[in-house]
């Protein structure tokens, strides 16, 4: 009905640019096109391939989570939807074969612009030795085993020793642990690229410490991820100290209670002393203080030092921690370490000149509850009314697909509510053609949805030859080569 009411007052369908093609961008497009089918959506994606973290973040052994791509593909088939792959907005292209357009140009040519570009950086610990060889960000490692072009050359040093440390206790940390400890023959059937498989096959890692500064009732990982590790064949879990949990688990809320039960039950495989046995542990109440090397190899990580913490309110999910007094430290031998304390969004380069408010501390675009962004032009210029954000650049890097979807729907609803006002205020907008008229763009490099289908087909074909669902192309040049 809204579409009808809107039609009566205005004949200009709103043109909407969505920057980013991950789940937040697609669910925002889905909601908007479902409620306002006359709107036109152009989705800009810096890479030649769509789906963001569904392709580059969701673990390869969670193929069922990637089924949301079916919905996204249907959204892309809407006649008013256009995919503009290989086009960066507001940033120069981060690879040699892409094109870039300015955010100012996009804002001039659309009624609404939606930031959905996610969180492409990570938080640093800020402790000594973080730059040693062998210390990686989990985000890069995840990108590497998922075929993200920017991380294809990571070459993590998995062959130097048996013990690995993952700092952080979210779902990404458990993903990293699971990939490190999984049987490579199992991973080989999934869509892990061959270069990563070859390196994982040579990994010596058999003991993974997943370390958090708080306790089990404050940990961010979900029950499913913990259960999966407990179910991995032949993998032992080091039993936890019962003192970390309340005596009566029934006093806990449902989710905490169920998670506690799983952690206390542990793994069916006992920790063995036989060589070759793989195991993992959750090491609680430890804050990293330094990454250390050994004298014989001063550039490489050899151990990680932590200070011990105590919880101010052990069984409260929001408890804070303080260092033990007197202080205690513990050192864990580690030939490799992953920092997994959260992704972080960065502002687009054009934000400052264009006047987009960005909260550096939280790593989000500033917004109202529905996802509307207040344009604040520096030079007192005209305020652009149609700015929105969605996904991790709105909420911060947290939550599963369901939460991203709910949040993207809220942004979509805001756009639909504003549609009439946006169209009335602006004239007819040129959309992508208007941007092309203003910007010097190598059009032949722009990747359409049809082009993506060809890349998709080529990846699946290569996968068939290797006995897996797909073999991802990990170089943007390789993707574009398919289209020549």
């Amino acid at each position: 009905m809204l579409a009808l009411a809107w039609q009566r007052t205005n004949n200009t369908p709103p043109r909407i640019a969505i920057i980013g093609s991950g789940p937040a961008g697609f669910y925002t497009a889905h909601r908007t096109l479902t409620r306002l089918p006359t709107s036109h959506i152009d989705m800009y994606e810096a890479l030649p391939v769509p789906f963001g973290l569904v392709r580059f973040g969701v673990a390869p052994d969670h193929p069922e989570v990637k089924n949301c791509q079916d919905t996204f593909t249907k959204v892309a088939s809407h006649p008013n939807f256009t995919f503009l792959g290989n086009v960066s907005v507001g940033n120069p292209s981060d690879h040699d074969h892409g094109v870039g357009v300015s955010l100012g140009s996009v804002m001039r040519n659309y009624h609404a612009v939606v930031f959905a570009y996610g969180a492409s950086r990570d938080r640093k610990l800020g402790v000594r030795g973080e730059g040693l060889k062998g210390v990686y960000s989990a985000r890069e490692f995840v990108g590497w085993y998922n075929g993200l072009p920017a991380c294809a050359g990571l070459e993590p040093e998995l062959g130097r020793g048996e013990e690995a440390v993952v700092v952080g206790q979210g779902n990404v940390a458990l993903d990293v642990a699971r990939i490190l400890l999984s049987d490579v023959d199992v991973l080989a059937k999934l869509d892990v690229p061959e270069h990563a498989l070859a390196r994982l096959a040579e990994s010596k890692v058999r003991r993974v410490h997943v370390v958090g500064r708080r306790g089990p009732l404050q940990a961010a990982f979900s029950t499913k991820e913990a259960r999966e590790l407990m179910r991995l064949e032949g993998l032992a879990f080091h039993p936890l100290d019962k003192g970390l949990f309340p005596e009566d688990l029934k006093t806990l809320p449902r989710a905490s209670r169920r998670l506690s039960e799983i952690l206390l039950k542990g793994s069916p495989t006992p920790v063995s002393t036989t060589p070759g046995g793989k195991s993992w542990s959750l090491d609680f109440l430890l804050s990293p203080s330094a990454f250390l090397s050994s004298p014989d190899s001063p550039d490489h990580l050899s151990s990680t030092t932590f200070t011990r913490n105590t919880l101010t309110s052990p069984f409260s999910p929001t408890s804070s921690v303080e260092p033990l007094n007197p202080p205690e430290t513990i050192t864990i031998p580690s030939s490799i370490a992953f920092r997994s304390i959260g992704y972080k969004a960065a502002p687009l380069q054009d934000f400052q000149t264009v006047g987009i408010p960005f909260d550096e501390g939280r790593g989000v675009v500033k917004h109202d509850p529905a996802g509307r962004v207040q344009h604040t032009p520096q030079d007192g210029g005209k305020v652009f009314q149609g700015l929105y954000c969605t996904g991790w650049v709105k909420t911060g890097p947290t939550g599963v697909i369901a939460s991203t979807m709910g949040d993207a729907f809220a942004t979509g609803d805001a756009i639909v509510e504003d549609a009439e006002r946006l169209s009335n205020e602006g004239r007819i907008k040129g959309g992508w053609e208007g941007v092309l008229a203003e910007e010097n763009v190598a059009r032949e490099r722009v990747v359409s949805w049809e082009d993506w289908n060809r890349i998709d087909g080529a990846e699946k074909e290569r996968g068939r030859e290797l006995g897996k669902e797909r073999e991802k192309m990990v170089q943007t040049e390789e993707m574009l080569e398919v289209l020549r």
Partner: protein
Amino acid sequence: MSAFRLCAQRLPGLRSFPKQPASAITQKLAVSPSPPSRAQLLNAARLSPRPQLRAFSASARVSHGHVDPPKPGEELYVTFVDKEGEEHKIAVNAGDNLLDVAQAHDLEMEGACGGSCACSTCHVIVTDQKYYDQMPEPDDDENDMLDLAFGLTETSRLGCQVKMTKELDGMVVKLPSMTRNLQASDFK
């Protein structure tokens, strides 16, 4: 359908977009914008190196939920209460799951993972404990996902895991709002 056919012929690369309910299609026909501009046509042509004509179909036939209408006399009934409070009473077959039923009837239930019990977007709340008790207990995997659902209740289930049976005939389930409740942190 003539307006659609016109569009379909003019916009190469058009494919079906089956998520829309029949009512939305009617709306869309009524408000269908003027024929695409020259710029749009150029744009569409440029973006489609190999233009293909495909039949446009927007009927429920190609929709998600692969459910057949029940044979007369064998109907079981389930009522969905959407987030606006509107009731949708639907005749179904034994064995149909609630996600497929909801999607086949264009109710707002996402099923992001395609019904593989890997998300919580098909969360439903059984309004009467009596019916909830008639269902086989949720397994660990379903409970793990329910732990992540917004507005979890004692009688929450995942729609993809609930299969209709004779015992569930007449059941009423509520569809919780999919949009997250706004939190204080959003106001910063």
